[in-house]
């Protein structure tokens, strides 16, 4: 298997983000502060949804955006999102707001976005004028959240033909 993308894998999965970039992205000293209002517009949510659907087909109908909105309304330490798990010292809200801003900028006033082409550029950090956290990190996190809603639930297991075998069935998250 040829891995020209190995660098991306290294960067995406390990928490290899320069502290200065994190500071710029809205560092928090307290993980217990009440989450502030989410400054993401409906149009930006649509962009995130389209991007996620291009990365993980099925994430739109599985309800990814509603899942993200619900999780972002939780205190950070209770969020079931990949961004919390990676331990990036940005709040989940700051992380997704950063993505929304970069997607708006990438759209650059045009009516449509080629989401599949954009995700491919994000995966290789080749989006022109991308600012803040690396595009490949956003790609990794959004892909993980998308996979969670499509494949990470009892319904997702069924889709894959797997027995879920729960000791205790999880509460619905979608």
């Amino acid at each position, binding site marked *: 298997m040829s891995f020209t993308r190995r660098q991306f894998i*290294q960067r995406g999965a390990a928490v290899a983000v320069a*502290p200065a970039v994190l500071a710029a992205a809205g560092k928090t000293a307290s993980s217990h502060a009440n989450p502030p209002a989410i400054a993401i517009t409906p149009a930006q949510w649509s962009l995130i949804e389209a991007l996620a659907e291009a990365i993980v087909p099925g994430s739109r109908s599985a309800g990814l955006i509603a899942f993200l909105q619900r999780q972002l309304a939780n205190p950070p330490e209770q969020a079931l999102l990949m961004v919390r798990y990676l*331990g990036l010292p940005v709040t989940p809200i700051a992380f997704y707001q950063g993505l929304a801003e970069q997607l708006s900028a990438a759209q650059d006033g045009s009516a449509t976005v080629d989401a599949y082409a954009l995700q491919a550029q994000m995966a290789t950090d080749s989006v022109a004028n991308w600012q803040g956290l690396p595009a490949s990190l956003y790609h990794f996190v959004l892909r993980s959240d998308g996979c969670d809603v499509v494949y990470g639930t009892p319904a997702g297991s069924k889709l894959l033909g797997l027995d879920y075998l729960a000791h205790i069935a999880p509460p619905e998250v979608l």
Partner: protein
Amino acid sequence: MSTQLPTQESCDIAIIGSGPAAALYAARAAEAGRSVVLLEAGPERRLEQLYSSQLWARQLKWGGSPVEEQGNHKVGHVFNSGWGSGGGGMHHYAVYPRLQPSDFSVRADHGHGLDWPISYAQLRPHYDRVQADIGISGDATQEHWRPPGDDYPMPPMPLFAQSRLIATGFAQRGMHTAPLPLAINSRPYKGRPSCQFDGWCDAGCPIGALANPLVTYLAAATAAGAELRCESTVTEVIKDGTGHRLQGVRYRDASGQRQTLLANQVVLAAGTIENSRLLLANQLANSSGLVGSHLMSHPARSIYGLFDQPSEPTLGITGGQLICHDRYHPKRKADDQYGSYQWLIGQAMKPTDLLGIANTRPDIAGAQLDSFMREATQKVGNMVFVAEDIANPDNRVELTGQLDQHGQPLARAVHNISSQTQALVQAATQEGLDIFRAAGVAEPWHGPLIGMHILGGTPIGQDAASSVADSHGRSHDIDNLWIAGGSLFPSSGAVNPTFTLLALADRGANAMLTAR
């Protein structure tokens, strides 16, 4: 504003944290008739809340003050740390190999890192006692590298297809595998049931087949009268006038109120980073200047491959099914390579999550993703090497200029691996790919190098000049301060650390209970 005065209670033993090490101290002390209070920063965990779900599993991870991370090999504090009753023991996989005798003398033998002030032989009875307490399944005869120790109380776990397939690759290369030693029941043990091999261990084992603290030492401690206070974050340690003893601790309770708990003995078992952070913030136990130093994390990397037959990858135990220590010795493998490593083979994987099947190939997106998921959830196999880290004084926990919501300084964890370790992990990666090829995988691949387990920062040693605590974990500077957990390790070895830190805690608790 509340007019209530802060309460000033007292107990024999105040324990900071409620992870595996804290729980063992609490059990031994409460069973000896001492009054014990455990103060745990995170929420209460209950078995009935351990939902079988990789999403919900994330709630078990660190939720306290953020830790800034720097270096070429970050320690991954959130991933690697627990939060709430049981600490990291609630999401740990219960892989319980022992350190090798050679791990105790790496400085004397190889000029690297720090030596332990005790030998394997001195720790062995404590390994054996812990093993009998909590139950370990395995096959000591098959582990021909295993140092002396009592036989495992339970037979090994059954093997699922991926491990049988991968084992053929080891055999082809003349390498030996043995059943993985696990603190998981292969048959009922001390009232706890057998494992059901469903692979949900990462989300916490609600049936108690896996020896998490809630069903082992924490249960024993509370049964013997210890009190567990959750959402109680210790912020200060109170010194007496002499500076050589503590009077107790101060903590914030669930409502944010400042409380004082006086104690005859204080056990600091708040996890590796927090142990150093609390000592540094309180300017305590640091006459050596070594608090925070020699931070370590095992470099680890997974190898993956698709077999041409079903591999049952979602079944078994999250920690794996087989182990290989053929590369533990010699530690100096080449002029430019130093360190031991072990292979852990056949981890049960769920479809998603950081260690899940989808993220083994984060480069696959779009229409190809679904076909990959359908194939890989039937045919993927995986194993991981866990390599030795060299204790280096420059790798350290230090305080940043920022404060958390309690006004306490935040921690920064700086961790780099040496060129000799980097060469070691490159060689191990290549070996792993070759093993998979030998097992019949056409195109194996590997994941990123990650930090597994966090160790060091308060190393034990012979004297106050060269270490923070003595061989029992007792502070050289403060007579009634006992440090516990992986922060005590002077060297990392290349094995999962919880069995060893429990053995150390058993030794420390014995000493504390007989101390004046």
